[in-house]
């Protein structure tokens, strides 16, 4: 027996192995796809939320002409980054 077949053999006869294995793989694929879709969904929602927040802030700025107070323009990480160029 080829070493690569060893995990399959643990599940019984050749036909049973293939059927059981195929079902297991379909389940695994489904789980991976569900996790993947969930990750994309969370990303999409956070991106859309930020876009909407930015747009609302910008629209308010156009109405009033007044920006909110500016955050500090410095951080330690930025100094490190800015050494690059």
């Amino acid at each position: 027996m080829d070493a690569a077949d060893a995990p399959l053999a643990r599940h019984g006869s050749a036909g049973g192995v293939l059927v059981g294995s195929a079902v297991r793989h379909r389940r695994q694929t489904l789980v991976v796809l569900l996790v993947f879709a969930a990750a994309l969904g969370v990303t999409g929602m956070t991106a859309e939320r930020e876009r909407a927040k930015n747009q609302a802030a910008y629209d308010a700025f156009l109405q009033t002409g007044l920006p909110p107070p500016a955050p500090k323009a410095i951080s330690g990480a930025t100094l490190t980054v800015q050494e690059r160029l």
Partner: protein
Amino acid sequence: MIDEVDRRGFAVLGWLLGILLVTGLFSRALGLHWVQEVEWPTDLYALGRLERPLPVDVGIVGSSRSHYGLAPTAVDACLALTAGRATTTVSANRLAASLYASDIVARELFSGERKPRALVVEVAPESLNANHFELDYNVASSAGLGDVSECIGAATFGPPSLSGCARPLFRGVENIAFWLHRPLTEHRHITWMALYAGGGQYCFGTPACEARNADYDLRHQGRWKTRIDRVLPKVRTERFIDYTIEGGLPARHFVALLDRAKAEGVAVHVVNLPVSEVYQAEVPEAAYAEFLRWVPETTASHGGAFLDLNLPEWRVREQYIDPDHLNASGAGKLSARVCAELAGSVR
């Protein structure tokens, strides 16, 4: 002979490839391809997804030099006087951008339905070097799927590297990881600048802006010396190694930018931004001569206007935060100078 185990292996690889590609397309559809490990200097995500009631009047593309040196609020304050109305200037810059990255930013943010009346394009001798020291990063940060084949073609003769060219195929996963990791470096500040000041490092016209500018320059007082110690010794060997312009990806994209703008009726102003005396001394004379020969000629023959501001009167130490980036005072003056050049293009 392909057996069941092989087939499973291929299936896993196929699924992985599919997931990476779908993630990339999804990320691009959401504008998240702009999200990088370093968002500085411009929050391109915020800029890219913002819907404006009126078209942008002036778009600015370039590297950190245009980020520091050209302040959209100063350009607008000046343009409003000549145009007789409020104008909108937006600056979209990439870290270590060559003309390759600048063209892609311009193509995606300042063309088609989003075309401005005028486009200011920062050029510098190193930004057109076919062997640009950050060309791989330029591809990684900016290239889209459609740019991969061109990149691979170029990689067979020289930079970028082939592995760099593959990055846009799989970048979606890293874009999303960086997105979920937010806030990244100085995110809130650069978003604020993107939304309320058109981007750039400095803003003018309000007490909040003036205070920010002063605070920033004060906190970066040590930057001049630090970069003289760390950057200047590497300028010749890193940024001007094997200097050549023609045939390189940056030059090709520079021409593409000019041609696209001309076809769309956008006035292009190509500006050679100033650097300090100490930085200019590190630029090899032969490379600078080639740059000054090629850029004005190419710009004119493709319908653009060239403005050389890297002149001795702009190189005084007091105007710089470090050897090749202007401070708030320098940015205010340079923005007014560029505005004078734009007046004919923005009515």
